[in-house]
């Protein structure tokens, strides 16, 4: 008689999920936005993305060999960092820029702290902010979407940058913003494609709704109240659809390592991100604040975790 009663220690619930499985699913969920970026900005966007991914993977590999640790290239986390970094760059940048950014992301943003699981900041955003502070000229020159043949590149400001300069934005339609027909970074423009990828992650249960929903909702509320000429007159839909908010909320603010663990903590995290993003967009010096907001809240994550710890059953 076979023994069907198995006695073992916890955990008792098993899932087929593993680090590499989750990471590669995230990679797949980012592909629609990548395709949209290539359609909108042309092949330049593809080269930038590929170069960033290659540089990130190579850096990860070299660090693994140098520190004689387990080679972690195949778990896909370096690939994600490369893709997310490239998605945060304009398509017209010189190709050494994504290389420098990806090397910085992996080396300083991740490996210096001890590799995957130890990094306190989202590595891709560390790389982007480094590039932004170092070469602002390249990082804020955006290519016009769906350009006519015969021109190498036409630059065009992002809707948020135009808003910051005080230009009237009446000619911008919400549908264009939703589909990505406006200047911006490679991966952030096409909201539709981003939402498809985000839906995949939500259905699979790899990310929870807490951070993205509170993040977007808070940004909308604050830009509605304070973003317009008078109170309660802001164009909240415009603020949701423009800039990197959707990309940041679903793919970067939900980084497992650098965000709070509990649901309550995640709500606080999303709230803080939304508040900071709105503050930077409305009153700050930069037109866009998503990356800074997420990085600042990454820094606050240990404190949020400490004060939202779950009560152990049976204790006070």
């Amino acid at each position, binding site marked *: 008689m076979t023994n069907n009663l198995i006695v073992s220690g916890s955990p008792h619930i098993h899932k087929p999920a593993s680090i590499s499985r989750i990471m590669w699913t995230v990679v797949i969920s980012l592909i629609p936005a990548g395709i949209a970026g290539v359609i909108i900005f042309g092949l330049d966007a593809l080269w930038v993305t590929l170069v960033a991914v290659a540089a990130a993977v190579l850096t990860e590999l070299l660090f693994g060999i140098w520190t004689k640790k387990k080679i972690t290239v195949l778990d896909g986390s370096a690939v994600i960092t490369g893709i997310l970094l490239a998605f945060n760059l304009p398509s017209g940048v010189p190709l050494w820029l994504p290389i420098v950014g990806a090397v910085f992301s992996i080396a*300083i943003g991740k490996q*210096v702290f001890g590799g995957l699981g130890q990094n306190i900041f989202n590595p891709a955003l560390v790389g982007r902010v*480094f590039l932004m*502070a*170092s*070469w*602002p000229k390249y990082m804020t020159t955006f290519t016009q979407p769906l350009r006519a043949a015969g021109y190498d590149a036409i630059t065009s400001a992002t809707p948020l940058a135009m808003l910051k300069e005080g230009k009237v934005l009446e000619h911008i339609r919400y549908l264009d913003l939703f589909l990505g027909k406006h200047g911006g970074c490679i991966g952030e423009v096409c909201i539709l494609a981003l939402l498809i990828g985000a839906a995949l992650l939500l259905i699979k249960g790899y990310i929870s709704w807490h951070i993205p929903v509170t993040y977007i909702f808070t940004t909308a509320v604050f830009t509605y109240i304070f973003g317009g000429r008078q109170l309660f007159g802001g164009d909240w839909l415009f603020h949701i659809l423009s800039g990197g908010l959707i990309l940041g909320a679903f793919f970067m603010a939900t980084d497992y390592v650098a965000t709070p663990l509990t649901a309550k903590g995640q709500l606080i995290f999303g709230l803080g991100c939304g508040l900071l993003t709105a503050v930077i967009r409305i009153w700050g010096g930069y037109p866009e604040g998503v990356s800074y907001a997420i990085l600042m809240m990454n820094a606050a994550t240990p404190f949020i975790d400490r004060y939202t710890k779950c009560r152990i059953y049976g204790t006070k």
Partner: protein
Amino acid sequence: MKNLIKEFTKGIIKENPTFVLALGLCPTLAVSVSVANAIGMGIAATFVLLGSSLIISLIRDFIPDKIRIPCYIVIIATFVTIAELCMKAYSPALDRSLGIYVPLIVVNCIVLGRAEAFACKNNLARSFFDGLGMGVGFTLALILISAIREFLGSGQILGHTLVKGFEPIFVFGMPSGALLVIGLLLGLFNLLKDKRA
């Protein structure tokens, strides 16, 4: 004599104030934007270290134990004032670019640290060489950091362009770049120390 040389050389590598003792980081972060600033700051700090170590070592038997720190501060402040006035008189440009950080040498923890830890317990010659070694070590550390930052941040060393076509990484000219460079160099020094041990 051999002992004195040892007091001098320990400040340069084995007890380097910046990379091993991690003292005086505030001026290090602030003035290491250019090599010229670093040299000026290093010389000023070395002068103050030398002077205060000498005087404190000479009068160490007369200072009452309870009020020794105020006494040190008065002596250090005297030398800082001398250094500041000399700098204002002979190189006003350097004085302008170093700004508040010259008077702030008064509260530099390297100077006070050497007074408290070394000069008040040792004789004149040893204190002199200790102060000199620490000052040189601090200056060399500042020059190393500022050379890296100036080259990466503006593509120049002492105002001369080294590599044509190099696009400067602005972030290294900013405070965040200073923190990055110092952090990485601290890590490197620890790595070398572990290797040797």
